[in-house]
């Protein structure tokens, strides 16, 4: 195989284009995954119930964001109302939720970070993860 530079990139009469292969570890494909949630989120008001009432009615949240039985040591009573998008945005930057202390707020955020597609609040949280200065 000829070394790089043997053939000028666009010499007259050149029929073979030069191709740099690069390193095996390099990355050459970026797949575009449009952030529908980002744009939709920016035009809507949304909220996240903690926990999803279909999955954890009556459950409390432990420090890692897992649902546990009410009263479990080291767990926290869920908020009375779904958490508002703006409060989640602030909590993502370190603030506490209204009426909640530091540990409780971190537990709620741990739960929210574990949300999966199909769970209540997933779309809302997705919309908040998108950067917007």
């Amino acid at each position, binding site marked *: 195989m000829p070394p790089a530079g043997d053939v000028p990139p666009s010499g007259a009469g050149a029929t073979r284009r030069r191709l740099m292969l690069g390193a095996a570890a*390099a990355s050459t494909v970026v797949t575009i995954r449009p952030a529908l949630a980002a744009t939709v989120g920016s035009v809507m008001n949304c909220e996240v119930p903690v926990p999803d009432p279909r999955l954890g009615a009556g459950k409390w949240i432990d420090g890692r964001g897992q649902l546990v039985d009410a009263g479990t040591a080291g767990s926290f009573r869920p908020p009375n109302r779904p958490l508002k998008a703006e409060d989640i945005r602030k909590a993502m930057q370190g603030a506490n939720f209204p009426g909640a202390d530091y540990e409780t707020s971190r537990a709620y955020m741990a739960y929210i970070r574990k949300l999966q597609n199909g769970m209540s609040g997933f779309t809302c949280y997705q919309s908040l993860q998108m950067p917007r200065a």
Partner: protein
Amino acid sequence: MPVYRVDPPACRLSVEAEGMTLLYHRPSGITHVLLPPAPEILTALADGPADPATLAARLAVSHAIGDGDGEDAAAVIAARLGELAAVGLVAVAPGIGGRVAG
């Protein structure tokens, strides 16, 4: 070495700019941004299923290959094929001694 195949060229719309390629894959409806040598590999693979070594030979006919970091061309092409398979732009050809690309 697995043998890869690619959809016919009509399945892809591509637009080149700034040394990169915007590629729309019709079967999946997904858009990708490709850097060389990924677009060239897709073009060469459209001539028929091939393993990395065969593709390296094909590309050496159509292109003057610069090996950049001195790695083996087939190894680099194998890595690129794995990457393209992961996003669904190529697939391991069934029944031609291939294995599922990981």
